[in-house]
């Protein structure tokens, strides 16, 4: 049971193949915003290197954000198209979960923070539980300073993880009793995506390609304010 995992919610292009028990291979390309050019070749390379046949894949797992829109659109669309062509399900996983999961061995409250641009961050808090993490807040978007104030008030010892922490290092430096995860944990982990998606696959928790949408958090259904302008 092999799963192809894709996450493009941040500046990183991440692709992995594996099952719940083991990772066959992983590609991480950092620091670009050329997701559209890099993703398909990365998948092709990884498939070739691991020798996994596409028609043997059980599912496509994809990080659905929240994250940077351009990358997210490329990753989610690629996952949907591949799943449809291969007639296999998609397993959508929130990218913040993929930031928290790799640091699950901490004893602290884990706060996953991804850069949302516009001087904002996406974030969620998790408690370590046996075998993983349990989310204890909603997925949210807001100013780093507001998150710091909220964490101060909560009084927990926290572990901050994700590229939003580095992007706003000056703000998070003001938080007492906080520990920072290393830069190797900054982007959503596609190895975590393989692990989480495999567990969901066993539970038959998957979606059809057309059901999967990116998670924006910022309001997207509303109409723009033409009424006020046009009178």
């Amino acid at each position, binding site marked *: 049971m092999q799963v192809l995992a894709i996450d493009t919610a941040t500046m990183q292009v991440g692709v992995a193949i594996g099952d719940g028990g083991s990772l066959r291979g992983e590609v991480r390309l950092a620091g670009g915003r050329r997701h559209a050019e890099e993703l398909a070749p990365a998948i092709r390379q990884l498939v070739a290197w691991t020798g996994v046949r596409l028609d043997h894949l059980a599912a496509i797992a994809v990080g659905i954000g929240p994250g940077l*829109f*351009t990358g997210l*659109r490329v990753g989610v669309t690629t996952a949907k198209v591949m799943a449809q062509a291969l007639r296999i399900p998609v397993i959508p996983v929130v990218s913040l979960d993929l930031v928290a999961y790799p640091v699950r061995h901490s004893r602290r409250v884990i706060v996953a923070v991804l850069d949302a641009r516009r*001087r904002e961050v996406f974030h969620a808090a998790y408690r370590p539980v046996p075998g993983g993490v349990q989310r204890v807040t909603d997925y949210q978007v807001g100013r780093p300073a507001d998150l710091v104030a909220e964490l101060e008030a909560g009084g927990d010892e926290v572990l901050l993880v994700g590229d939003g922490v580095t992007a706003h290092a000056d703000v998070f430096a003001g938080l007492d009793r906080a520990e920072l995860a290393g830069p190797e944990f900054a982007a959503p982990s596609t190895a975590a995506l393989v692990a989480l998606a495999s567990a969901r696959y066993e539970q038959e928790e998957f979606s059809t390609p057309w059901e999967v949408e990116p998670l924006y958090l*910022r309001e*997207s259904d509303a*109409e723009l*304010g033409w009424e*006020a302008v046009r009178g």
Partner: protein
Amino acid sequence: MSGITVVSHSAAETRGIGAALGALLRAGDVVLLAGGLGAGKTELTKGIGAALAVDAVIVSPTFTLARRYPGRPPLLHVDLYRLERVQELLDLGLEEEGDDAVTVIEWGDIASAHLPGERLEVQVDHVAVGGGSLDHRLITIAPQGPAWHARDADLARVLHGLT
């Protein structure tokens, strides 16, 4: 809208005002342009582009929605005229595209709640009275957000030269 208002008597003057503003702008800055059709938003953008050393001819991106010009820093010129929903705005990915550029958004006022709070708001009003005996533009410039207010002095110095 509160802010500083300057008067332009011609397209060339409007471009001059744009150029003066453009000289202040840095990568990551966002400018919202408001004002009716033909008010002079694109002329103002041409001036901003000139200050950023954009070589290409800047045209209104009404149909392409957004166009990026190489410059120092690059200019991301956006026109929201054809957009109706917030989703379409998100689809443009302006945060990422504009990260290393100056972003100028025509009709930005229709999406002000969904655009960065740190921004320069510019309103261009066409005033024509008496069959062309009075024909000019009122250009009102209002900085928004703490980071822009910290640049108030720079802005005042530039605008003072224009009034």
